[in-house]
């Protein structure tokens, strides 16, 4: 319980920093005024309402969604390296959005929402098929390799498509490395609904996922249907990852980092772990974003780069601890 309280405090602090850091003068009190007594004629208020708030909301959605998606994926694959970024699900959503808008010749929010989810689902199915996950237990190494390869391939397609089209560099960057900048342009409403749906589904099926993580024979003996649990987990991961990519682009490694910390806060009770993952995921993403904004002013380091800077060394460390063929 203490760890959970610390996580909530961290999230509150991260949210406050997201709203206040870099606000020229007035700091916290100005932010408070802009939120409680909005003055449409004050440009500072407008900036907070139209720039900072969307950024905070996008960070909350993407961070919570990626944290939960990572926790579900790690529980169901029994693979501590499972993460929507590493397993190529982020890349699948980004790829579908980019290629879809290329074909349709437009890139509005509705189209993006319609494409991100099937893209994420297709990548999830593909990575399980490639990694041997469809025929019983896929070893973590095989599944991870399949995911890394799929992710690299899809993101290089994304780069190739966008570079060939002479798009603005900023657009290109968003679909390769995630960012919370210009979050006001993203379909926050749709994606919040998708994320909440994914979160509720994940919480609902959590006890069944726990049963499945004991092996499929025992899970069936406990009265669950492994195929249905896997389908439910796939839908939840797709909704969560699609929502995250829709508001922040493909942010890698967050889903790797967060479940490990959440396990400390939630013990081995998956529902508690999921709630902790949502809180910690949002807190870490917002911290990373704020740090990225202040390290080399006036430019900012994109949050996708920040999470990679923290997450990549951790991935290497975790992969080194993993024995070939081990399952946990």
């Amino acid at each position: 319980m203490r760890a959970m309280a610390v996580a909530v405090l961290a999230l509150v602090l991260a949210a406050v920093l997201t709203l206040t850091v870099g606000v020229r003068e007035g700091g916290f009190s100005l932010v408070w005024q802009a939120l409680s007594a909005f003055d449409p004629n004050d440009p500072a208020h407008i900036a907070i309402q139209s720039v900072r708030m969307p950024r905070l909301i996008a960070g909350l959605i993407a961070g919570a969604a990626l944290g939960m998606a990572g926790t579900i994926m790690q529980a169901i694959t029994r693979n501590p390296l499972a993460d929507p970024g590493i397993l190529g699900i982020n890349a699948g959503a980004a790829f579908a959005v980019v290629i879809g808008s290329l074909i349709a010749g437009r890139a509005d929010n509705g189209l993006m929402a319609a494409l991100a989810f099937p893209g994420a689902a297709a990548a999830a199915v593909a990575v399980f098929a490639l990694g041997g996950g469809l025929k019983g237990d896929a070893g973590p190494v095989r599944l991870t390799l399949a995911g890394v390869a799929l992710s690299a391939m899809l993101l290089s397609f994304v780069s190739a498509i966008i570079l060939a089209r002479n798009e603005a560099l900023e657009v290109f960057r968003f679909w390769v490395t995630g960012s919370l900048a210009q979050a006001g342009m993203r379909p926050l409403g749709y994606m919040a609904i998708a994320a909440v749906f994914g979160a509720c589904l994940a919480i609902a099926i959590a006890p069944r996922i726990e049963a499945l993580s004991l092996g499929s024979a025992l899970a069936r003996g406990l009265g669950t249907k492994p195929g249905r649990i896997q389908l439910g987990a796939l839908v939840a991961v797709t909704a969560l990852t699609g929502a995250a990519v829709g508001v922040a682009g493909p942010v890698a490694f967050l889903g790797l980092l967060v479940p490990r910390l959440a396990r400390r806060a939630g013990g081995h009770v998956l529902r508690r772990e999921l709630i902790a993952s949502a809180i910690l995921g949002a807190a870490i993403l917002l911290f990373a974003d704020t740090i990225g904004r202040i390290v080399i002013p006036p430019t900012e380091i994109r949050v996708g780069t920040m999470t990679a800077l923290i997450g990549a060394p951790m991935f290497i460390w975790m992969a080194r601890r993993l024995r070939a063929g081990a399952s946990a």
Partner: protein
Amino acid sequence: MMLENDNALKAEGLTIGYGERTVIDNLSLDFPAGRMTAILGPNGCGKSTLLRALARLITPGKGKVTLGSDNIFSMDTRALARRLAILPQASKAPEGITVADLVRRGRTPWRGLFSAWSEADAAAVARALKEVGLTDMSERPIDQLSGGQRQRAWVALVLAQDTPCLLLDEPTTWLDLTHQIEVLSLIRERNRAQGVTVVTVLHDLNLAARFYDTLVLLGPNGMVAAGAPQDVLTEDNLMIGFGLSAMVVPDPITGTPMVVPR
């Protein structure tokens, strides 16, 4: 109250094969309610296959399995899991999980989609931990336990499932003799205290004769014998089932048959 007979398992005309190979051919067998039955036989004779069919983990080509008056293959999955539990061979626990958290997962069939942890769940888990003697170690991670303790934790998981019918696939494999006896004793305690129907696949013939009411001996060509230990473990049956030349003498302590290979 459930009728005693509702907990009897019955295989009728069971035929199971993997591809071309038929492992079990037209087998009919009774597993009486409230009794302990051990399935014995050489490797590859289909012991585990039979047990898995009794728990609906595999679907037979022909025949059916009934629990009381219900065909288990047409029962609701969760309804079956509230009446019959199975502990498969060599299960793997998630890394770092504690004994209590593992045993709690045995309550899965009793929990609804959004329902919270109930008093009954907590009581069943506490009782299962007590039965296997792990109450004091319930907050310890499984990976820190000895082999015998770990196996008792897995048995506690199916005990917490709180079913009137309990199936176990080689629960004593890899354990030393002391721990084998420990595990079989606690299963028998549950059987005697609550009239639970127990079916177990076992390797050790002498322990089976000591602890079980009924033995089923499968051989390479189907069932050899079924019945009380002294009727099943005979020199002739051992030759047919195992191709083993052995002498059968009364166990000096319990008087049950004891197999001594020649």
